[in-house]
């Protein structure tokens, strides 16, 4: 075959190839941008004013609106001026709250707080099923990692949530992302991209200052939640959960029952005892306790104790 035909074919093919690649890539742009979020465009001052003006959503941690999280998902979280706020011990803050998957294997959660002109310096509060705080991740748990490859500038942190005892009420079940008043005063110095280039090529970085991201009350975060795909028995690297319960409060006291309810249970227990149905009396006492009837167990014990 005449090589010229081949060249001509190659020439047209190359142009066609470049155009095709360009077209496909253009169509795929939205997917590409979705992989790494854009930092928040709200200025630090706007965010502070917005926070001051916002109305606190709830009085108790149990009252926050918890969104469900699914394992294996990558989630873009935008904490903005419309987000709910809450008065945490460390100060008022916008927050995002999640309920972690309960019937899953243990989870590895990676959080990237996207840095631009501002950045959201995160605090992660983890709570058990009774809303008792188990861990507070903050400060150095989230560290600045310069842009690298497809990852942009961000404050990164990673932690593990243990699920080796399914159904344990002490399992960490709720997660709240917020920031503290002290953190909002600070700033993070980023690496100038021209210097990142110089470091990668081992050149002398230009003598210019680095950009600074002011810590803001709002921000954009990316959350990746991965489920360990090995069963408990297969895992040789099992580490017991590093969970302490410093502020473990006593089990919540339910509101006292109405006097009518109290009367009802007392009468029912009396009747059961009169019939000699001990099992029923015991069940009634337990049920009454759950319903908030005060002293119903003592009521039963007094009636079955042999009199001296």
């Amino acid at each position: 075959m005449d090589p010229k035909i081949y060249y001509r074919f190659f020439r047209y093919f190359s142009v066609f190839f470049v155009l095709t690649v360009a077209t496909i890539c253009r169509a795929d742009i939205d997917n590409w941008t979705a992989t790494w979020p854009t930092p928040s465009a709200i200025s630090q001052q706007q965010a502070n004013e917005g926070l001051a003006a916002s109305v606190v959503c709830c009085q108790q941690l149990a009252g926050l609106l918890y969104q469900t999280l699914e394992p294996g998902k990558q989630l873009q979280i935008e904490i903005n001026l419309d987000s709910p706020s809450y008065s945490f011990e460390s100060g008022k803050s916008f927050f995002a709250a999640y309920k972690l998957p309960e019937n899953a294997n243990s989870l590895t959660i990676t959080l990237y707080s996207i840095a631009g002109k501002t950045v959201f310096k995160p605090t992660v509060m983890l709570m058990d099923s009774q809303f008792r705080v188990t861990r507070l991740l903050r400060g150095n748990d989230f560290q600045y990692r310069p842009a690298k490859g497809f990852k942009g500038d961000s404050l990164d942190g990673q932690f593990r949530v243990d699920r080796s005892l399914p159904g344990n009420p002490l399992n960490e079940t709720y997660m709240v992302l917020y920031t503290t008043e002290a953190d909002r005063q600070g700033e993070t110095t980023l690496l100038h991209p021209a210097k990142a280039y110089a470091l990668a090529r081992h050149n002398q970085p230009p003598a210019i200052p680095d950009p600074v991201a002011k810590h803001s009350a709002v921000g954009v975060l990316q959350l990746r939640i991965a489920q360990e795909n090995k069963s408990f028995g297969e895992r040789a690297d099992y580490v017991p959960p590093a969970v302490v319960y410093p502020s473990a409060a006593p089990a919540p006291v339910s509101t006292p029952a109405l006097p009518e309810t109290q009367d009802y249970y007392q009468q029912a227990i009396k009747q059961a005892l009169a019939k000699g149905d001990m099992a029923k009396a015991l069940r009634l006492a337990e049920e009454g306790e759950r319903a908030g009837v005060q002293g119903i167990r003592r009521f039963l014990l007094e009636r079955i104790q042999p009199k001296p």
Partner: protein
Amino acid sequence: MHRDNKNSNRSRWQKIKNNLPYITLICCLPSLFSSPVAAVDFHGYLRSGIGGTQGGGDQACFRAQGAGAKYRLGNECETYAEIQLGQELYKEGEKRFYVDSMIAYVSNQENDWEELTGDNGAKSSLRQMYVIGENVLDSFPGANIWAGKRYYQRHDVHINDYYYWDVSGPGAGIENIDVGFGELSLAWLRNTENDYQAKGGSSGTNVANDTFDIRLSDLAINENGKLELGLDYGRANLNTEQDDKDFDDNKGYLFTVQHTQSNWFGGYNKLALQYATDGMIGTGHNQSRDTSDGKMFRIVNQGVIELTENLEGMYVGIYEKKDLDNNQGQTWMSAGIRPVYKWNDVMSTALEVGYDRVKPQASGAETVDLTKVTLAQQWSAGRSFWARPVIRAFATYARWDGDDYNAASESIETGEDSGLTFGVQVEAWW
């Protein structure tokens, strides 16, 4: 029971042993994906791709004869990679030792299997292997001592890949001594000329050239401006035999004054003035063999500016005059711009226009010039001018005077005055 435990432990160990290669691989993987804590620092650079020339054939690359550099966008014909692995060896308080290494690879990107034997331009090179001790001298807090092969404080122009101050090589030194108004760095570095033949000598010997480098950097002289002063003294380090045979031992000086202005149209500007004599005419290393006595003056002005949120670009202007006693000098002038318009966070269009002109010192010799224009559509991770990795589809047009020389590396016949190439290239650093 006890025995069973032992057995199961042993079989578990066997399992681990059998899977050791995979375990190693899995352990190494996170370091590639910027995990929060990485034991080994992995840095690197690569460029590669495919291209063709109008009229048929492999991609041609264009460079003006005698020019110190060529504009690189859509004008690079090889695959080049640098793999750097570094690790902290020791840390106590502020004292720290760090080992760094780099292997570089280059090939003509012609085949799948390109053996790095040196044939067809496929080579590998041991470019860095050094240890740096930070804060280890109590008398110089903040200063670093280092020894080994190293890229030493190199200064480049990105868009034409031109390194105007580069004394890299085997060496040793002390860096960043705080002198109150700036930082002082001292280094001793080496380059060697191979198979040097003395006058009338039959076999060649290697001549070691030494460069002594002194830099005073980080001098604040104006608002947002920093000044750096550099002095390089180079000389041949002859042995007794070479001395007896009267080898040339060219020596020379290279003076550098460099000013960096930040807060400059959303970016920065960097101006370097250099003056060199005799053996040090060049970019930092002493040459005993090839250069005649003479002098050189060079200006390099470059910058990256962000005119609007969507328009960022780099510019450079170079003037270099080599005035040699043997009349073989030249004047090289170069100017180039690469504006990049960003359509969104991922896609941008880059235009690069570069012009080079080389005027030989000898009277009667022809002045040559070359204009290169490239249009590229780019997809990159992020919107900064420096965002990488980037994949670009490009078309390049170059024009020169074919009566004087052929500016193309291949696929263009001698006598032609212009060339058009196109292709796709990837560039990444991390």
